């Protein structure tokens, strides 16, 4: 066999790819990074900002190519977006039609082909820098018990849905520190551990974060004053509640040529000044070693191997360009290396692997039949309210604090835990403000549910009413821990005739929330009522069971599900059934709606045995010793923390393993 072209080929330049490239290129390895999307030099930020400013729908994808509303069949790198999951892309008969080649969302609009029974609601990016262009920057560590769920909370229960990880938290402490320094996380260890050591938040001895913490908002301080130390929350017996400042990959001081955060309140969808870390920062660091070759607009279509137990011997990719009328694309090009790293995130990675046929009816790295299974997100319960006093939202980073202190506890034996993110952006996420409330008070409508009199205002009266609302609005976002389910999964279907602009199959998604997960929503609703009671706030949350079609008929809202625990609500004290504290004003809710959190996890899980997992604890394929699948697709469970810091720490660990493997075997 001829010498391979490179030491390492890395597919995907989001978070995991650049981190591994930087670590190993600094050690002298010759690396090729292949990125499917376009390059994104710093000068592109202005163009993306302009797209954002001029787009009417300012969803997280609005700044970035391809343009909003593009047909995924005509794009080289289409991606899942939030706008694709809007109700107007759902057929009123979706419920009855599902399964017969029909999908929840119109396939001319939605890149993901969603077979249900429930929709997957998160999006991701396919450009250089990946999804971090519109990440929020939240950089929490996982907790001790997050790694040992089965042995801690389900040892005696054969049906307990949560597995253990093949590693424990101590295995990651050092890598967490390295990841926090690479990302540039702003936080303070003593503040974090003061309230959170009790739930298993750990650091190496003497550790300190690279940057000082981000100051809390006026809202955070007010909520902390009301809640801190309180321990009579229903369903959390004896557990104290604390509001803590959120570690963030956001500059609290200048870093290189990147500025300090100026509180643009726009981390999602785009930081105008790159105060927030993204994958391009680390990619530039890798490229500065001179050991990295970077190819953009090259979509990898196949990982080549002769069979299980055999090494990977190459990858194939297609180079594409947008021509004046159509996409031009190369014939498949083969590249070879000693080690292959796939860092294409938790939907594109399994899609690529399932496309990698080995000619014997089997696909690469899938002897366990786990590839693509266990797709998870943090289904998010959003609860929004008005405070009795002004707290001045719409200022500062989108979130600066959260309630982390209930992320662990004995209740995890039978219902999902969550973390609660406190939002500084008023009801922007919740109802699309300021647009919705302004339109209500100018047009005499009540979409916000705060203009029941249908007032039509102008002049000082309009200003006063808007000021009153906007300076009191806030929301909690509960990131609920989802269970891994074998049939929540990514597959491909080469026979449905639905492809992307390169004629590649599109991801088919099956997804559902288990009873365990749904019970987490019920506990979040009860918790929010207690919080509103303590603050004197009024709940305006709406969980819409139905959507309304253009002709006025109602049909089931795909993101709504039935309340899993009516008894728990029946048993609440009357004070917690007051309509002004309850979502929809319902003492016993009929059901809940969920959002996506942008956290795509679990589809090539790590484990301690090959039979039930795809990769080992270093993210190495059990089936091919020269293949590493990295990113949060390896997580056996999603836990309650946002995934990126942990996937970055795992990438550090993988880099070490590759370094060792290159040194010993080659």
């Amino acid at each position, binding site marked *: 066999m001829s010498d391979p072209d490179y030491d390492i080929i890395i597919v995907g330049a989001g978070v995991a790819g650049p981190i591994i490239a930087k670590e190993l290129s600094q050690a002298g390895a010759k690396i090729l990074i292949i990125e499917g999307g376009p390059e994104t030099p710093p000068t592109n930020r202005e163009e993306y900002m302009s797209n954002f400013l001029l787009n009417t729908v300012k969803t997280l994808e609005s700044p970035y190519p391809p343009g909003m509303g593009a047909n995924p069949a005509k794009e080289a790198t289409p991606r899942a977006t939030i706008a694709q999951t809007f109700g107007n892309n759902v057929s009123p008969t979706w419920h009855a039609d599902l399964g017969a080649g029909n999908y929840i969302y119109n396939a001319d609009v939605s890149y993901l082909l969603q077979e249900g029974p429930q929709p997957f609601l998160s999006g991701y990016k396919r450009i250089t820098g990946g999804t971090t262009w519109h990440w929020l920057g939240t950089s929490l560590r996982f907790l001790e018990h997050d790694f040992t769920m089965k042995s801690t909370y389900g040892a005696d229960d054969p049906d307990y849905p949560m597995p253990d990880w093949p590693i424990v938290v101590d295995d990651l402490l050092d890598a967490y520190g390295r990841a926090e320094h690479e990302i540039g996380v702003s936080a303070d260890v003593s503040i974090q551990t003061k309230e959170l050591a009790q739930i298993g938040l750990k650091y190496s001895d003497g550790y300190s974060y690279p940057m000082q913490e981000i100051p809390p908002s006026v809202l955070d301080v007010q909520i902390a004053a009301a809640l801190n130390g309180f321990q009579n929350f229903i369903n959390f017996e004896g557990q104290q509640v604390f509001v803590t400042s959120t570690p963030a990959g956001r500059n609290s001081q200048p870093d290189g040529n990147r500025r300090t955060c100026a509180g643009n309140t726009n981390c999602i969808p785009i930081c105008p000044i790159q105060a927030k870390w993204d994958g391009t920062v680390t990619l530039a660091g890798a490229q500065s070693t001179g050991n990295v070759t970077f190819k953009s607009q090259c979509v990898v279509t196949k990982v080549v191997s002769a069979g299980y137990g055999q090494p990977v011997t190459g990858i194939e990719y297609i180079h594409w360009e947008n021509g004046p009328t159509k996409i031009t694309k190369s014939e498949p090009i083969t590249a070879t290396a000693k080690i292959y790293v796939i860092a294409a995130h938790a939907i594109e990675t399994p899609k690529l692997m399932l496309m990698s046929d080995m000619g014997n009816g089997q696909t690469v790295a899938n002897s366990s039949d786990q590839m693509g299974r266990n797709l998870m997100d943090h289904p998010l319960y959003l609860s929004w309210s008005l405070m009795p006093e002004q707290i001045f939202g719409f*200022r500062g980073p989108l979130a600066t604090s959260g309630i982390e202190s209930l992320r662990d506890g004995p209740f995890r034996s039978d219902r999902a835990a969550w973390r609660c993110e406190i939002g500084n952006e008023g009801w922007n996420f919740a109802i699309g403000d300021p647009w919705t409330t302004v339109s209500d008070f100018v047009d005499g409508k009540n979409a916000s549910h705060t203009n029941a*009199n249908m007032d039509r205002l102008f002049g000082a009266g309009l200003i006063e009413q808007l000021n009153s609302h906007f300076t009191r609005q806030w929301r909690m976002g509960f990131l609920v821990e989802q269970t891994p389910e074998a049939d929540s999964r990514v597959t491909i279907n080469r026979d449905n005739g639905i492809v992307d602009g390169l004629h590649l199959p599109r991801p088919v998604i099956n997804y559902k929330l288990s009873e365990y997960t749904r019970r987490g929503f019920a506990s979040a609703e009860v918790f929010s009522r207690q919080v509103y009671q303590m603050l004197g706030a009024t709940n305006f949350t709406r969980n819409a069971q139905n959507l309304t079609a253009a002709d006025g008929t109602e049909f089931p809202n795909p993101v709504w599900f039935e309340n899993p625990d009516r008894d728990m609500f029946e048993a609440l004290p009357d004070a917690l059934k007051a309509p002004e504290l309850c979502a929809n004003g319902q003492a016993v809710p009929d059901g809940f709606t969920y959002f996506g959190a942008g956290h795509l996890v679990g589809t090539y899980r790590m484990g301690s045995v090959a039979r039930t997992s795809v990769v080992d604890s270093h993210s190495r394929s059990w089936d091919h010793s020269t293949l590493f699948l990295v990113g949060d697709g390896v997580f056996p469970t999603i836990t309650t923390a946002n995934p990126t810091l942990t996937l970055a720490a795992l990438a550090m660990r993988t880099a070490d393993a590759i370094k060792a493997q290159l040194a010993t075997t080659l």
Partner: protein
Amino acid sequence: MSNSDQKTFNAMSALLTGFNEQLIAPQVDPIGLPKLFLQWATDHSGGDCANLLATFASLQAIVPALSTDEIGSVIMGVSPDPTTGEPIDENQTAVAQAILKLWYLGSWYQPFDIAGAAKGKETVVSDQAYIKGLASQSMQSHAMGNSTLTFGYWDKPPAASLQVTTGNDEVSAGGPPDTSGWGASA
């Protein structure tokens, strides 16, 4: 667009938005939103923007003078036109509402069907229209994505009062929202 149309438009904009005319239509104005907005409203309302300005001018000319509240109520279709006893033409009110939202949000919501634009079509008329949108002033903040402040400002309430951000001494800030008719189940 004639100078006098622009003057009428600016006066009407100040009355409807509640913001001081010097703030939204300054003498020296490198950005030029009033001009852009009048042009946009004229181009997207058949003759109804011109009709609305004429109605506004005639209301201003009534002796004894109507209060700004009375004029605004007529324009917004909340009270009848005192000279006719009838509400003004509903298309004119719809244009006034579209202009008011344009000032607050930077977006033009097409008020009724015209050739080339269906009712409800939304357009951000320029990046500055979004950035300078008065909604962010009414919340004593900035448009999302356009902070002019520096690190850490969010841990204190806004330094500038609502009177300062709107240039209107008559607004009283901080009052509780009008809760009449509220109910979480509404």
